[in-house]
C-alpha cells in the first residue's frame, strides 16, 4: 500500500498515540478492502454515540486519553439520550449515564454536538464532489446520491479513525469508476400524471433496496420530487432494507442528467420494472396492521425532520388535537430546533400536542410512552426497524396527512391511492 509522508508520520506517533492508533486501524481496514492508498477527506460524520456495550465507550475514551483530536469538521450521529429533553428518555441507570458519557466523550475529541442523522441538512452539508467519510446509512446515501459528495459505507470505529487522521481508503464510491449505475429500475404502467407523493418515493426506495443487491441502482421514470426530503425518504428506506449507498434518479440527482450518464454510457446488468402492483406490495410490507386499527402514537422525523418538513406539518395541525391516549412525536436535530425556537414555532408545536425529540430517535431508545402499542409513521425506515427494536404490537406506514388524521382519530386512517 502506498502511504503518504503524513500517513507515515501518524504511524510513527508524531501526532500522538490516538492518531497513531487511528492510522494503524485505517491501514488494516484499507488492506482488507484492497485499497492501494488513502486519500484526503474534508469532513466526517461519526455514528459512534449509540452504545453497543462497554467497548463503545472504551474505544472513544482510549482515543481521548491518547490526545486524539479530529482533523476535519466532524458531525455526530444520534445518541441514546436526548440531552435537550432528558426527561423524555425512559432509560435506567447505569445505561443512562453511559449513553450521556459516550456522547460527551466524542465532544472531547473535537466533534460537533450535532447529534443528528441528517447532517446534510445542517451547516455541515458537503458540496458536490467532496471526498468525505460518513457513517449512518441514510446520511451516506443522501450525500452520495442527492448531493454528489463521495463516501463509502463507513461505520463503527473506522469513521472516527478517518476523522482523527483526515484520511480514508481510496476505494469504492470515492472513485469515478465505481459510481456508475449498474442496475436499472424503470417505473412503468403509471399514468403520465403520476403524483410525487411521499408514498411513491418510499415504495420505490423499498423496492430498490430489496432488489439492488450490492449494485448501484438507477431509477428512471420518477416524477420530479417536491423537495429533497422525498429523496431523503427514498434513500433512507433503501439503505434500511438493503445496502444501498448510492442511487441515481434520472433527471433528478446530480450525476444522472440523462440515463446514459447515470449508467456511465454502458448497458445495465439488469433492468427491473416497477409497476403499480410492485408499489402496493412494497407499501404493504411496511404495515403490519390494517386501516382502522387503534394506535397509541404517531412518530415522524426518521430521518430527522427538516425545517421544510416542519413547514409542511404546521398547517396540518390547525385545529388538531390528538385523540386521548395518542402521542405525536417528531424527531429532529438541534440546529432545526434552534431555528424553530427563533420563530417561536417550538412552543406552537408543543401547544398543538407535539412532543419534540432531539439528539436521538424514537426507534433507537425508549421515548414512546407505550412500547407495546401500534404506531403510525410516515417513515419507511422507522416502519422497518421500530417493531423489532422496540417490540411494538404493530406499525402502520402512511402519508404525513394520514398520520395526523390518524393521531386525531386514534386509529389508522388512510387516504393514499396506493
Amino acid at each position, binding site marked *: 500500500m502506498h502511504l503518504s509522508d503524513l500517513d507515515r508520520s501518524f504511524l510513527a506517533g508524531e501526532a500522538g498515540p490516538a492518531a497513531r492508533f487511528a492510522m494503524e486501524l485505517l491501514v488494516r481496514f484499507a488492506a482488507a*478492502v484492497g485499497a492501494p492508498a488513502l486519500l484526503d477527506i474534508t469532513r466526517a460524520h461519526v455514528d459512534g454515540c449509540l452504545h453497543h456495550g462497554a*467497548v463503545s465507550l472504551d474505544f472513544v475514551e482510549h482515543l481521548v486519553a491518547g490526545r486524539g483530536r479530529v482533523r476535519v469538521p466532524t458531525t455526530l450521529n444520534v445518541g441514546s439520550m436526548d440531552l435537550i429533553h432528558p426527561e423524555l428518555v425512559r432509560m435506567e441507570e447505569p445505561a443512562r449515564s453511559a449513553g450521556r458519557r459516550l456522547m460527551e466523550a466524542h465532544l472531547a475529541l473535537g466533534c460537533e454536538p450535532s447529534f443528528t442523522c441528517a447532517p446534510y441538512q445542517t451547516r455541515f452539508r458537503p458540496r458536490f464532489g467532496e471526498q468525505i467519510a460518513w457513517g449512518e446509512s441514510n446520511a451516506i446515501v443522501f450525500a452520495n446520491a442527492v448531493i454528489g459528495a463521495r463516501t463509502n459505507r463507513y*461505520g463503527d470505529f473506522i469513521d472516527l479513525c478517518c476523522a482523527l487522521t483526515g484520511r480514508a481508503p481510496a476505494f469504492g464510491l470515492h472513485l469515478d469508476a465505481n459510481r456508475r449505475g449498474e442496475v436499472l429500475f424503470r417505473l412503468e404502467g403509471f399514468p403520465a400524471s403520476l403524483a410525487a407523493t411521499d408514498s411513491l418515493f418510499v415504495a420505490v426506495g423499498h423496492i430498490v433496496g430489496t432488489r439492488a443487491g450490492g449494485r448501484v441502482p438507477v431509477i428512471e421514470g420518477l416524477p420530479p420530487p417536491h423537495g429533497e426530503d422525498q429523496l431523503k425518504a427514498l434513500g433512507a428506506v433503501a439503505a434500511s432494507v438493503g445496502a444501498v449507498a448510492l442511487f441515481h434518479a434520472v433527471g433528478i440527482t446530480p450525476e444522472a442528467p440523462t440515463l446514459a450518464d447515470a449508467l456511465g454510457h454502458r448497458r445495465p446488468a439488469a433492468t427491473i420494472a416497477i409497476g403499480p402492483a410492485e408499489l402496493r406490495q412494497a407499501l404493504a410490507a411496511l404495515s403490519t396492521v390494517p386501516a382502522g386499527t387503534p394506535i397509541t402514537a404517531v412518530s415522524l422525523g426518521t430521518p430527522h425532520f427538516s425545517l421544510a418538513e416542519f413547514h409542511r406539518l404546521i398547517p396540518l395541525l390547525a385545529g388538531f388535537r390528538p385523540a386521548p391516549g395518542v402521542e405525536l412525536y417528531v424527531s429532529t436535530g438541534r440546529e432545526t430546533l434552534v431555528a424553530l425556537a427563533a420563530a417561536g414555532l417550538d412552543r406552537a408545536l408543543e401547544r398543538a400536542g407535539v412532543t419534540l425529540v432531539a439528539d436521538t430517535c424514537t426507534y433507537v431508545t425508549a421515548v414512546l410512552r407505550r412500547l407495546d402499542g401500534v404506531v403510525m409513521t410516515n417513515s419507511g425506515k422507522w416502519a422497518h426497524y421500530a417493531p423489532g427494536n422496540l417490540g411494538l404490537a404493530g406499525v402502520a406506514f402512511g402519508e404525513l396527512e394520514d398520520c395526523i388524521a390518524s393521531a386525531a382519530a386514534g386509529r389508522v386512517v388512510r387516504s393514499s391511492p396506493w
Partner: protein
Amino acid sequence: MVSLAARTLAEGEAQGRLLVLDTPLSFWGGLDPTTGRVIDRSHPACGRSLAGRILVMASGRGSSSSSSVLAEAIRRGTAPAGIVLAEPDPIVAVGALVAHRLYRLACPVVVVADLAPLREGGTARITAPAGAPARIELTGSTDEPERSSPAVS
C-alpha cells in the same frame, strides 16, 4: 496433518473445534455478545453458541455495527476463538483489531482460498502473526474420509 496457507486480517493464535456456517451471519442482530449465542431467528444456526469455536463462514454480512458486537463479545469472552473467512471482511477485521488493542484479547481473523477442508466437528489451530502469512492446521480428525487437499507447510 493438513495445513492451509491463509492471509492475516487480525493477528493472534487460536485453537478450537470448527463451527461451519453455510449462511453468513451478521453479528449485529445475529449474535448476543452477553451469551455468545446466535439470536438471528432467520439463521440456520440460531441458538448455537459460537464461544470458543473456530468460526468458519464465507463472508461477513450486514451492518457495520457488527464490528462493535464482535469486539464486545471478545471483551466478554463469548466470542469465537478465531474466525476463518473466504473473502476479506473489513467489518469483522476491525472488530477483532479493536478488541486486541483495547483489551489485549486476540481473536485471529484469517482468509483462506478454499473453505472445503474445514469441516464441522474437526479441530483446528490458527497461527496468524502480525505482518506475516497465517497458517491453519487441522489438528483433529473429522468423521469424513481424508480429502486430498493441497497441503501447504
